[in-house]
Structure formats: structure tokens, C-alpha cells
């Protein structure tokens, strides 16, 4: 695969890959987890639209893409602390954050540590940010969430399996066409990141990786996030069901919600135009 645009920076001793575009107020985009995920894959339909108005920082979260893994436990809080250091190092003392899926939990953790530095918060399809967000009706993780966590664990790392697992996150499978998945898959296999991912997922407790074991603490933390907050979600999200959202809406001080039809977990692939319009409206609005 050809080299992706962007640059490596060393933050707190860790190699961290970022791609910065546009100008104006800074917006950090934080992707979620899952096999072969990285910043520019997750945000390819969003970053160009936002960079017409903002300085957009797309980061590979530690352990993903071209960024080195954390040396401390890979929890959302620790990943968030690393990204706070990154933004400080880049010279941003005020900025907005957008996090998708597990990235939504990471930006919540960042905001809890740096209220005032972070001026607006966007949580996108993030079951990790919702108390009980990945739970199915039977109480366990949803099948779609487990499919991502367990990719390759049974030895099947084929392209077909990869496509099957990744397409659980979209409403319309053609929004993740073969050629796009092929590029990221080839990189995943050739770089050896596939083994890193499988080992990592086997070693982490998904509850701690995506959530926290103490829901009461987390709710108390969410109650302190008094800043303009936007929650965006796909109606057909099978990984984290929108019906769970009241558990988040009722505890955040200032959340606006926008729910989109015909959109799965990765709503940015299913409804990019409407999502971008709503994001821009929220991020540019004087509150």
C-alpha cells in the first residue's frame, strides 16, 4: 500500500501518527476499535468536509494504524491522557473533540480531565460512552460487537471474513465496497498488525477495554461534563442499540441528540452528507 499522508510525532516517548488538514479552530477526530481500523479509514467521509471550516487533526489511536501501542494498560482513560498530551504538544489549548465508537468513550475521558480546554464534545455511535451501551437484551455484548472483538481469533483471517465483520457496522454494505476494504485489509495483513490486534483483543477484558467496571463512577463523571455536547447515532446500529441512549442523555448536562435513519454503527459511511451538515451546524454554532 502507498504511504498514507500524515506525519509521525513522538508524544511522551510514543510514536503517534497524525494527519492535519484545514485551518481555523481545532477539531480532533478519534476513531474506534476493530480490526484494521485507523484514523483516515474511519474519517474519510468526514474530515474533508470539516477541514473546510476547521483545523482537523485525525489521529491513529495508540495501538492502531501507524501509532505505537500504549505502554500502560490500554483503557479509554489512558488513551485519552495520551491524546491530551498530543494536543498540548501540537500547541492547541482550546479545541473540540469528536469520537466514534470506543473513540467516543476516549473523548469523554479526555473531556472529564480537561474541561475548559475542550470546548465541545461529539459522541458518535459510542456504546462505550453509554452505561450498558453494548449490551444485548440477554445482557451480554451484542453479537455485532463480539464479531469485531473476536475477528481472527478462530484462525480465520480471510478477506471474506474481514468483509463480513466490517460490514456489520453499515446499513448498506455497498457503502464499504470491496476495493476500500481490500486496501485496509492488505495493510493489516502485510504489516503484521493483524497479529497485534488478535493478541491484544485476547489479552484485554472487553469490559475494561470499552467501558469501565464501575458504572456509578462513570455516571458521576458524565454528570460533570457540562459543555455543549452532541450525540449522533444510526438507527440501525446493531453494535450499540440506540434504545440504550436514555442512559446517556439523562445523565449528561447538555446533550443534543441527532439520530439518522438508514444508518448503521458507522453512520459516517451510511449518511455522510447529513452527518456532516449536523456536525458543522453544531461545531460552528455560537452557544
Amino acid at each position, binding site marked *: 500500500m502507498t504511504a498514507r499522508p500524515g506525519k509521525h510525532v513522538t508524544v511522551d516517548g510514543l510514536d503517534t501518527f497524525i494527519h492535519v488538514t484545514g485551518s481555523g479552530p481545532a477539531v480532533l477526530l478519534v476513531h474506534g476499535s476493530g480490526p484494521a481500523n485507523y484514523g483516515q479509514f474511519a474519517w474519510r467521509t468526514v474530515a474533508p468536509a470539516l477541514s473546510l471550516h476547521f483545523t482537523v487533526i485525525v489521529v491513529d489511536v495508540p495501538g492502531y494504524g501507524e501509532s505505537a501501542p500504549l505502554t500502560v494498560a490500554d483503557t479509554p482513560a489512558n488513551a485519552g491522557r495520551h491524546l491530551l498530551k498530543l494536543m498540548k504538544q501540537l500547541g492547541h489549548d482550546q479545541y473540540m473533540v469528536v469520537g466514534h465508537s470506543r473513540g467516543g468513550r476516549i473523548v469523554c475521558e479526555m473531556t472529564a480531565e480537561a474541561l475548559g480546554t475542550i470546548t465541545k464534545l461529539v459522541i458518535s455511535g459510542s456504546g462505550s460512552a453509554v452505561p450498558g451501551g453494548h449490551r444485548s437484551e440477554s445482557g451480554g455484548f451484542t453479537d455485532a460487537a463480539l464479531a469485531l472483538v473476536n475477528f481472527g481469533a478462530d484462525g480465520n483471517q480471510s478477506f471474506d471474513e474481514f468483509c463480513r465483520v466490517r460490514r456489520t457496522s453499515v446499513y448498506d454494505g455497498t457503502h464499504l465496497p470491496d476495493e476500500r476494504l481490500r486496501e485496509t485489509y492488505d495493510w493489516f495483513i502485510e504489516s503484521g498488525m493483524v497479529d497485534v490486534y488478535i493478541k491484544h483483543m485476547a489479552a484485554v477484558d472487553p469490559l475494561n477495554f470499552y467501558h469501565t467496571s464501575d458504572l456509578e463512577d462513570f455516571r458521576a463523571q458524565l454528570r460533570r461534563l457540562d459543555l455543549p455536547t452532541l450525540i449522533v447515532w444510526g438507527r440501525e446500529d446493531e453494535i450499540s442499540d440506540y434504545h440504550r441512549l436514555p442512559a446517556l442523555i439523562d445523565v449528561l448536562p447538555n446533550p*443534543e441528540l*441527532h*439520530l*439518522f435513519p438508514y444508518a448503521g454503527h458507522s453512520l459516517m459511511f451510511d449518511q455522510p452528507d447529513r452527518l456532516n451538515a449536523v456536525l458543522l451546524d453544531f461545531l460552528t454554532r455560537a452557544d
Partner: protein
Amino acid sequence: MESRVIDVEGVGTYLLEDGAGAPLVLVHGSGPGITASMSWLPVMEPLAAAGRRVIAVDMPGYGKSAPLQDADTPVNVAAHLEKLLDTLGIGEATVVGHSRGGRIATELAIRAPERLTSLSVIASGSVAPGGHLNDDGTWTEAAVALVNFGRDGDLSFEKFRDAYATHLFDKTALDDILAAAYEDAISSGVLAHFVEQMQVNDPLNYYHKQDTDGFIAKLRSIQMPTLVIWGREDECSSYQKGLGLVDVIPDIEFALLPRCGHFVMADQPRRFSSILSGFLDGVDAKASVR
């Protein structure tokens, strides 16, 4: 902002109009003294500024509009609204209804889908299944307060204010919003008319209708782009009930606003206007691609 009374098949109908562009018709809800102005004034200018011809209607029996000759049901008012479009020479419009007005707009979308480019339903417990009900099946206190206003013969401003107090998150805005509407309604006799209507109407038929399953089936058949906006702190019809529409209406976007009661336009005028305008722009963009 301009105002006029037009004759819609014998029913004098009062309109407020602002801006130019594609027609956007605003349908207010019910309650003592409600008018187009009381409901929509905070958002008319921003919506007009976003490039639309904004038409806010005093519904029959409210404000400066004459009552319907037929029974005042959402279906009959929707028929009146369709005639209003005919009278104005408007072929297609986008229609936005608040509270009971959401039910009227939805009935219009069901009976004349070819006339609507999109449907927006704002905090409408009359559209959401069980929308005005508490968990125990009783009507919410806030809804009952409006329905029962004046039943004891007390039409004072204090009682009027009390009836609306739970409908705004920002209580400091209450007097500003209510004072002018109250004066007009009391002097014109509209307030007494409302109280009378509430005593002869079965609220179930007035706000809803008994055929809930049939109505839900009709909601499932709505094909046009639909936007639903709700306030998180709505005590008249809870947002959780509103969310129930998401699994029923096919092409629905659902927006929820914080620090916002039942009168979404009064509590969050800027957010309301920008979300609605953004949605309508998206509908226009899609239509122009087709």
C-alpha cells in the same frame, strides 16, 4: 413580517408571513390562548432568513381565525389546511407542526402526501403512541393542566400562567411569551371558547383518535423525509415516547434538545431553527439530485 386574513372555503383564516422561497407552513398546537404568533414568533425570522417563505397559521378556533364548521378533529383540520394551500395557490409545501399541530401535519401527510416535500413533527404527544401518558397510563399533569384550564370559571392571568408553567424549561421567559396572547384571547372571547370546547370535546378525540393501531399503520406508510424534534425536559409528552416514533416512521431523523421543555421554539429558538433549516436544506439537496 406581514399578516392577513384569507377566506378558506368560508372559514376566515389568519396568517403571519415572512420571507421568500419554498413555502414552509407552521401549525401550532392547542391550549388556552395559543396563536401562531405565541408559538412561532421566536423562530420565524431565522427560518425566513434561511431562504424560506414562512407561513404561520392561526388554526381554526384559535387567535384571529374562525372556528371550523365541521367537528374540530385533527383529520378535519388537516383537510382545512389542504384547502388553505389551494387558496394560497401553493402546490407543494413543507409542513411543521407542534404538539397537536404535529398530529394535524401528520394527518395531512397521510391524506395528501403529494402536497408535502417533508414533514416535521415537534414535541407531539398526539403523534407518538401513548405520547401524553405517564407510565401508569394516566395523562401527564402538564397536558391535563391545559385541558382543564378555566373549568372552574377562573380565567385569570395567574391561572393561565400556571397552566403553562410546566411547558417551558426556562420559566423566566413565561411572562414575555404569554402576556400578549392572554390579552388578545381574553378580549376576543377566544379563551372562553377554548374552555367551552374542552368541556364538549373528548380529549382523546381532540388530540388523538381512538384507532391507535390504525394510526400507527398509517405512520409506517409515510414515505417522505420526516424530522422529529423534542425537548429533553418535556413534561407534557416525554421524549422517550417521542423516540418511539423512530421505529415506526420509515425515513425519520430524530433530534433532541437539552434544557428544553414542551415549547421547543421558545426554549431553544436558535438550535431549533438551525436544525430545522439544515434538515430542509438536506431534503432540497436530495430532491435536486433526483
